[in-house]
């Protein structure tokens, strides 16, 4: 077998060079967002406990919550929440046997991506201006 030329043959797809389909990306993102949003939950629960703990505790927690860092954590968790919300609704349809075709998976993936961004912006507008 040593005399068979192998140098110019195309290699099979490998994770490092393989472009993931959009439905795979949203599936991975669903898991990631589900875990990441707990950062925002922790911040809010700390803030709630601090409110009953005392003035100094609340002042510290409230300062962190409303700082640029707190906004980053809460806004990131908010987007994660909406992404996970929409991807979770898609799972109801998956479980019922719908939207399982490749074409449907791609369309719903883009709907989840853009939908989560739109819902995050709308929620933030509601928070700051309503």
């Amino acid at each position: 077998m040593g005399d068979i030329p192998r140098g110019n043959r195309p290699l099979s797809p490998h994770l490092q060079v393989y472009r993931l389909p959009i439905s795979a990306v949203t599936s991975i993102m669903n898991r990631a967002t589900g875990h990441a949003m707990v950062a925002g939950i922790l911040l809010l629960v700390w803030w709630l406990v601090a409110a009953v703990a005392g003035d100094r505790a609340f002042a510290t927690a409230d300062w962190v919550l409303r700082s640029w860092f707190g906004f980053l954590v809460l806004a990131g968790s908010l987007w994660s929440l909406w992404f996970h919300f929409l991807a979770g609704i898609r799972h109801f349809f998956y479980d019922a046997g719908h939207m399982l075709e490749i074409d449907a998976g791609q369309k719903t993936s883009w709907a989840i991506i853009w939908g989560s961004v739109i819902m995050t912006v709308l929620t933030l507008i509601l928070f700051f201006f309503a």
Partner: protein
Amino acid sequence: MRYITPRKAAMGLGAAGPSTGTQHHWTMTVTSVALVVLTPAFLLVIGRAIGLPREGVLVYFSQPYPAIVTALFLIVGMYHFVKGTRIMIDDYLDHTERKVAIIFSEMFGWAVIAAAVYALARMALSAVIV
């Protein structure tokens, strides 16, 4: 020498057998449906609370609707998180690491629930006493 055949060793270890896979999936479905309702309700509640002074926060969460919605969202949400994290743990970890991760995830989830319920109960009940 092992007398047990590989087939015998694997019998009954599947997710659908006497294990808890079906129950787990159903729990995820029920908590997901609950969270579809609770998520928008919680966001509207918490959006009004952030930015209030400490006294305002204490009075706000002493009202039934904000207190109950926040408690339900955090309890059901963290329970859904614990059950969801189990899927990732089962995917990536084995043996002792898997057991430690499952125990840590359960303890973390219930600790967050306990802290949230404690804070909300203090705020809700103190208003009645005073």
